[in-house]
């Protein structure tokens, strides 16, 4: 700070327009400089003593001004009045509350617009739900094992998800009931891993609905259901002749249970008359009902052939079934079992031949048992 700079800023110091640092520097300079101190003191004293006395305005001046303002406002040209009104409206419109309210209304309006708008042509959208809800017909039934009945397949009791028929109506499923089948038949079902048997059984039983769609006639459906239930009851009670007759009638009449009735009818026939009679009937069912019921029939026909010792025919059926995904594994296992059995039979035959030759010579006793007869099957 020097005297020249002091002269430039002394008025700022006098009227407190200096920042703190410059003000402090100026005051320090005044402490050491008598000239600047005298200037500063003189100006300060002049300002203190020479303050202009303020004169009060005449009474009524304010009122005159306000009155004149009122008159002037009334005499404002219409353009300025409109401008003032517009300015007043704009002032209200620019308030945050108004802006937020407008934004909220815009959001609500746009939401309603989008909610009302539905894509697509509604005239062509027609959804018809037919039949009864699945929960009314699906049930879980666990039938205890009967002492005299063959081991029921460990199919479970939970049906597979009901697919829909082509027209969109839900396929009607009956309660899943375990099949009272012959032991050889039950083995592959039981061996199915992880509930595949259940799914398969359900699919097999419900395949009739795959083949023929329900027409929605509830009376005919209830009659058919009652007949089928009666036939199944006779079958489970061991009244195979009656069961066979009832199943044959149901199969002959057709309907949703025709396929299953045909299969069960032949199974009942097998119980009554044995495999020689049942095998051709199983083949007939297999031919008539392609699908899971037909595959079941083919499997049981093969089982009959095996019990009758007709291994070639049994193998032929197994090979056909190996093309069916649900029977593929079991069919291959059955084929391997048949091959082993054929090999065993050939080995036994060779040994028997050798023993016969030895006995004829009278030197060596027969050291091997004759070959086992074929399974007497029912």
């Amino acid at each position, binding site marked *: 700070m020097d005297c020249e700079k002091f002269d*430039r800023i*002394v*008025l*700022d110091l006098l*009227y407190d*327009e200096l920042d703190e640092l410059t003000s402090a520097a100026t005051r320090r300079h005044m402490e050491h400089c008598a000239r600047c101190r005298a200037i500063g*003191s*003189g*100006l*300060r*004293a*002049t*300002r*203190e*003593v*020479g*303050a*202009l*006395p*303020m*004169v*009060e*305005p*005449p009474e009524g*001046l*304010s009122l*005159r*001004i*306000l009155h*004149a*303002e*009122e008159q*002037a*406002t009334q005499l404002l040209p219409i353009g*300025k009045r409109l*401008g*003032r*009104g517009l*300015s*007043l409206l704009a*002032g209200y419109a620019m308030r945050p509350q108004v802006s937020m309210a407008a934004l909220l209304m815009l959001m609500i309006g746009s939401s309603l617009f989008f909610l009302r708008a539905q894509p697509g042509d509604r005239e062509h959208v027609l959804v018809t739900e037919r039949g009864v809800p699945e929960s009314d017909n699906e049930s879980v039934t666990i039938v205890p094992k009967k002492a005299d009945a063959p081991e029921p397949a460990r199919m479970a009791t939970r049906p597979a998800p009901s697919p829909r028929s082509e027209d969109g109506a839900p396929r009607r499923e009956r309660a899943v009931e375990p099949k009272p089948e012959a032991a050889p038949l039950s083995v592959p079902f039981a061996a199915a891993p992880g509930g595949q048997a259940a799914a398969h059984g359900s699919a097999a039983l419900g395949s009739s609905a795959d083949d023929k769609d329900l027409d929605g006639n509830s009376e005919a459906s209830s009659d058919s259901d009652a007949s089928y239930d009666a036939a199944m009851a006779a079958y489970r009670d061991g009244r195979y002749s009656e069961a066979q007759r009832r199943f044959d009638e149901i199969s002959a009449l057709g309907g949703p249970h025709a396929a299953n009735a045909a299969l069960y009818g032949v199974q009942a026939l097998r119980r009554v008359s044995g495999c020689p009679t049942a095998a051709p009937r199983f083949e007939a069912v297999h031919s008539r009902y392609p699908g899971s019921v037909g595959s079941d029939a083919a499997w049981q026909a093969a089982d009959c052939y095996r019990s009758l010792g007709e291994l070639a025919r049994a193998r032929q059926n197994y090979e056909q079934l190996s093309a069916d995904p649900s029977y593929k594994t079991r069919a291959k296992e059955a084929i391997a079992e048949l091959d082993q059995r054929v090999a065993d039979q050939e080995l036994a035959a060779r040994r028997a031949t050798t023993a016969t030759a030895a006995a004829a010579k009278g030197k060596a006793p027969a050291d091997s048992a004759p070959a086992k007869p074929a399974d007497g099957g029912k």
Partner: protein
Amino acid sequence: MAAVQGDATDEMLMVRYQRGERKAFVELVRRHNRSIYNFVLRQLRVPSVAEDVTQDVFMRLVQNAAEFKHEARFLTWLYTIARNLCIDQLRKLSHRRHASLDQPQRDGRDQTDAQLGETIADPNPLASAERSALSSEVRSSIVKAVDSLPDDQREVFLLREVANLPFREIAEITGVGENTVKSRMRYALDRLKDALCDFEEYARALR
């Protein structure tokens, strides 16, 4: 509402008045009526004329309210109006003075000076009776010193002392540089100092 307007700045009040709130204008008049009147009175030296000009200042504000920008400083705008009206009025008075040169000794200038001296030195006769004669003499000297200032120096002095405007805004109003404003102010203070240096109050203030 009055409390809210009392806290509001001049600029906020002016914006409200632009929107049509007359109360804002009332508040502005209440705040600045006195300082505008004193500024005009010191410039024109005739109380009746000063009263009319003060009213004109506020009427100009009313008429040009829509032109006020809220970024601008209200006092700068108001004193610019007052200054321009004072300049117009001084021109008129000067013309009148020249026209009355042939009149006897008591011309308008002498008369107004005498009236103003009385008004300022003794605005309230009852109260002034209690004051010392020296104080009255000091104030009279102050008024005379201010009146004797050149117009440009008096203008700056009044804007600084009466309107309490910073030098930057005074420069804006007067249309000259800030350093010029300070220089004029310095001269004005020096003249005032010369007028006061013989008084005891000044000597006491120096100590």
